[in-house]
């Protein structure tokens, strides 16, 4: 699943804000822009962007998902890196599209895959930022949820490295980290019982280490986990990794 080719790195990038940030989590998209600009990167936001097509892809309706993916590829046409604050949407470009376009190769789709970066992966492995010049005011224990779409990408290690380098931050491992949180897109609503059980187990393991903050690279996982935790009256403060990077910056 990891991109074996060298993806472009530059100080001018296209931002794919993701549909979830468009609808619910505007501050995550905003933090992405602010962090990248802090690093001297110019961020362009193509207005006609919508979604990567993954919801339809996962249900098996590949006619629908290919239409959306083609639209997406046309919106992000060119040679600039495409930066996504979501491991899941990035995986759709990098891997899902490869699968659904196997029988009908498409140059724009291939080009999109060759230029897509999950944002934390881009910062660490693309721009080469190894330490983050940030600081928490008080010692902060962070539980980092490496979402499933980042199992074998550079994102997990990148996020751990950057978060750990923040002054007063400690990334604390928790149990059964290889287990899924139970979101899984439409899975969350067609398997509501199993999804909620999986999420509750994840929350148990996270709460076991008594973190001050839950960090993630996919708002979908965090939305599901926080929604469950809120309904159960046991929320854990959570942020996307880019929000943490922005909020701890020493200016």
């Amino acid at each position, binding site marked *: 699943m990891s991109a074996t080719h060298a993806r472009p790195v530059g100080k001018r990038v296209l931002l794919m804000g993701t549909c979830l940030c468009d*609808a619910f989590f505007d501050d995550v998209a905003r933090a992405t822009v602010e962090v990248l600009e802090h690093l001297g990167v110019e961020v362009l936001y193509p207005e006609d962007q919508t979604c990567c097509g993954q919801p339809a892809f*996962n249900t098996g309706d590949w006619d629908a998902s290919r239409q959306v993916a083609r639209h997406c590829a046309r919106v992000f046409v060119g040679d600039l890196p495409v930066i996504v604050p979501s491991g899941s949407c990035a995986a759709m470009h990098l891997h899902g599209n490869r699968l659904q376009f196997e029988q009908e190769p498409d140059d724009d789709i291939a080009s999109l895959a060759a230029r897509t970066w999950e944002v934390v992966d881009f910062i660490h492995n693309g721009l080469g930022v190894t330490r983050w010049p940030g600081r928490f005011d008080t010692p902060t224990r962070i539980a980092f949820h490496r979402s499933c779409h980042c199992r074998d990408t550079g994102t997990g290690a990148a996020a751990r490295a950057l978060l750990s380098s923040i002054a007063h931050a400690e990334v604390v491992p928790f149990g059964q980290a290889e287990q899924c949180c139970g979101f899984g897109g*439409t899975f969350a609503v067609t398997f509501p019982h199993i999804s909620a059980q*999986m999420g509750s187990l994840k929350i148990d393991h996270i709460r076991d280490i008594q973190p001050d903050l839950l960090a993630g690279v996919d708002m979908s996982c965090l939305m599901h986990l926080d929604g469950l935790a809120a309904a159960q009256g046991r929320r854990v403060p959570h942020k996307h990794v880019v929000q943490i990077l922005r909020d701890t910056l020493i200016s």
Partner: protein
Amino acid sequence: MSSVQPIDLYARRISDEKQLSVMDGTSTGTDKRYRILHADYPDPDALRRLAGAIKDHTLQHLDTYLDAADRALTANGAQVHYAADAADARSVILAILRGHGVTRLTKSKSMAAEEIHLNRFLMDNGIECTESDLGEFIVQLDDDEPSHIVKPIIHKNRREIATTFQREGVADDYNDDPETITRRARVHLRGKYLAAGACITGANFVCADSGRLVLVTNEGNTRFGMAPVPVHIALVGIEKLVPRECDLAVFLNLLGRSATGQQLTVYTEFIAGPRAAGRPDGPEHMHVVFLDNGRSDILASDCREILRCIRCGACQNVCPVYRQASGHAYRSTYGGPVGAVLTPLLAGADFATYADLPKASSLCGACREVCPVDIPIPDLLLRLRHQAHREAVPSPGAVPMSPFAKLATSPSLWRTAMTMSKAMNHLPVQVAPIAPLRNWLGSRTLPESRGGEFRKWIKRHSNHS
């Protein structure tokens, strides 16, 4: 139609006791596998990829290797049979047994035999067939179904087993001490071994170069089963071939570690052929029945990688859906991720009946990460979902995706919808008659809609910079 998938409904109904047994057994299995593979190998993933490549090569040249195995087996003195489907395999086996006048036999654990429902068929034909694997023996006593590939009774606890033993007369009293249970089964099975006229086994591997059959167990039951009988029948899926004996070095090292966290299973049998000059032990007659039963069709499909499977059960252990729902939720011989792929494929024309199984996954990829033969299980689940959609198989709770595609390919409509989604913040969404929303809100809150806010911000931001 329900808005919820069958496997989710099944998971809701299983007892806490059963769920706990499955959860315990699977998480222990996952931890043991991880620890031993990483302790013993600097890069276990490289080993998984090598095993996958060997299996892939074998499958690409399966006709050649099957011919080679046939020749080698025959030269060793075994008789080779071919069964196109389950019914064919059952009648081939029955004919062999009748030919040798066998009325009682023991059988070691074989997923292929489960797949063709061999036990019931033999019993119906007047042949007493005793399972000699402890787990399978308990399944048989309970008239239950195995729920895991290597741990058939992962869904039971020792109290249930002690009750079964007492009820079925294997023991005179109730005793749930594991060692006592095992000792009692051993005493009971000894009599069955001695009275049997044949032994049926599967095979974990068949070496195409030498015709050697490899069987792994932890109980030594295949060794016991074969020792006193004149007839050995091995039922083998055609995908069980490996090209050379030396390939076993890769597979045996991976199988034990992946399945049970053991470096090697306690017993590994290498069977070169029936009793002959220079081979003083074992049955005089050896029959190998190669089973197709849909495998050739799978080989021709875009899901052929599933035929690499060596039946270790690691994907079942790590799968969060399997852990919640148990193997029985999959309504077939093979449960969990491998079953979600294999079952609808083996069903052939009956694909639609099992088209819900590939949906039972969050596509988390944990199965792919642990698979000893590197099967891209999530990709195969997705291809099968695509097939189900192409064949218009109805799917409970499915959200129609063409309106989504319309919206997501019309930027101005999309932007309007995003802005309008903020209306949700002022609506009583809890009572909305929309199944997906209801299913979401059943256990979770929904975040506040902020539709279009980022677009507003970035516009202002760009104007200022």
